[in-house]
């Protein structure tokens, strides 16, 4: 474990066309840390995740993943950095609709050139670890919201990310299944020295974090240590 932050947002701003979604947001996440990002609807939580993942480019400020300035990379390099260092779980799973579930989960490994049989075997292991009752042969359109979230979690974890970004990762699951999935997301990332940023409007999920960063109107309203 090093002292270098795994994720840094420095004075980041972003606008969706003419609507300012985030402004002056700074956030540093160290290895082994779990940060909950909370706040009312429309406060910029999901935008922050997309910026932190390098999916969106910040209009202002800098985003660094494992020390690399995301803004200085071209699209291909950003995608590579994302595949290798970032696990992303979004609210509705966002699986690729024309791939079976197993290939969806295996995708980060397949794109990195891992042999298909190996990638699929690891994907199947992760589906089991996240508690998904799936064979992997299903199509995304056949899954319930909760199953899609479990599959997305498996996909996010399959490559052993340094930074796990999870946007409402348990919203479609009941309390017990959600808690179990959160256990896997946190423990699997932390045991490889990674860090987790979890966006949630659920206070019980937020309470699992070491620190809460609360957004309001696209800005950090407060940041408090919980552990």
């Amino acid at each position: 474990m090093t002292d270098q932050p795994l994720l840094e947002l420095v004075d980041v701003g972003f606008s969706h066309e003419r609507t300012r979604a985030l402004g002056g947001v700074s956030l540093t996440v160290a290895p082994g840390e779990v940060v909950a990002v909370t706040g009312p609807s429309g406060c910029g939580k999901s935008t922050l995740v997309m910026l932190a993942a390098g999916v969106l480019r910040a209009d202002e400020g800098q985003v660094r993943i494992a020390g690399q300035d995301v803004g200085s990379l071209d699209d291909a390099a950003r995608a590579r950095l994302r595949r290798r260092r970032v696990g992303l779980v979004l609210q509705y799973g966002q699986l690729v609709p024309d791939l079976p579930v197993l290939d969806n989960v295996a995708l980060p490994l397949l794109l990195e050139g891992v042999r298909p049989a190996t990638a699929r075997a690891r994907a199947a292991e992760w589906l089991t670890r996240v508690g998904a009752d799936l064979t992997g042969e299903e199509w995304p359109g056949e899954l319930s919201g909760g199953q899609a979230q479990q599959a997305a979690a498996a996909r996010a974890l399959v490559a052993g990310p340094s930074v796990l970004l999870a946007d409402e990762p348990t919203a479609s699951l009941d309390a017990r299944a959600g808690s179990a999935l959160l256990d896997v997301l946190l423990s699997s990332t932390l045991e490889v020295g990674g860090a987790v940023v979890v966006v949630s409007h659920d206070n019980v999920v937020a309470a699992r974090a070491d620190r809460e960063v609360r957004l309001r109107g696209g800005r950090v309203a407060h940041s408090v240590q919980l552990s």
Partner: protein
Amino acid sequence: MVHTPCVSLPELHLALLVGEPRHGYDLKREHDAWFPDTRPLPFGQVYATLARLQRDGLAEVVGTQAGNGPERTVYALTAQGEQRLRAWLAEPAEATASGAEEIVRKTVAALHTGIDVDGFVARQRAHHLRRIRELQAHPPGSSPAERLVREHLVAHLDADLRWLEHAAELAPTDRGDQS
């Protein structure tokens, strides 16, 4: 820690004196307006509390007001009283199911007086989240009854937090560009 229902009554009186001196009747009326769905404050309690606040140097008599009946004594907050009020608001309410009333009192007092509302909400939120975190870290015993008691407490804390979010939305904003 178990809260008695009126443990914070002196501090609430101090909050009611912020901004302008008041006589007892005025203060009672204002209190009942702040908490419209709770038991009205008995006059006897108001005068007894004001006397204690005066004795302790937290409030002072600044005059009398003539009305239809007898003259009314007007009280004002002292610097020491304001200090005591701020100290009360700086301390989060206990994160227990029975602490809910105290949270309501503190939040309403913070909103009416405008004393560090954001800071109060942030501290109270952190206090509650830490308590939920503690409860999650120490699973209850295996019996369903123990689990139910734990879930009841977590649900209460969660309800407090959700209610506090509304308070945060009502707080005066001075945060620059919010668009």
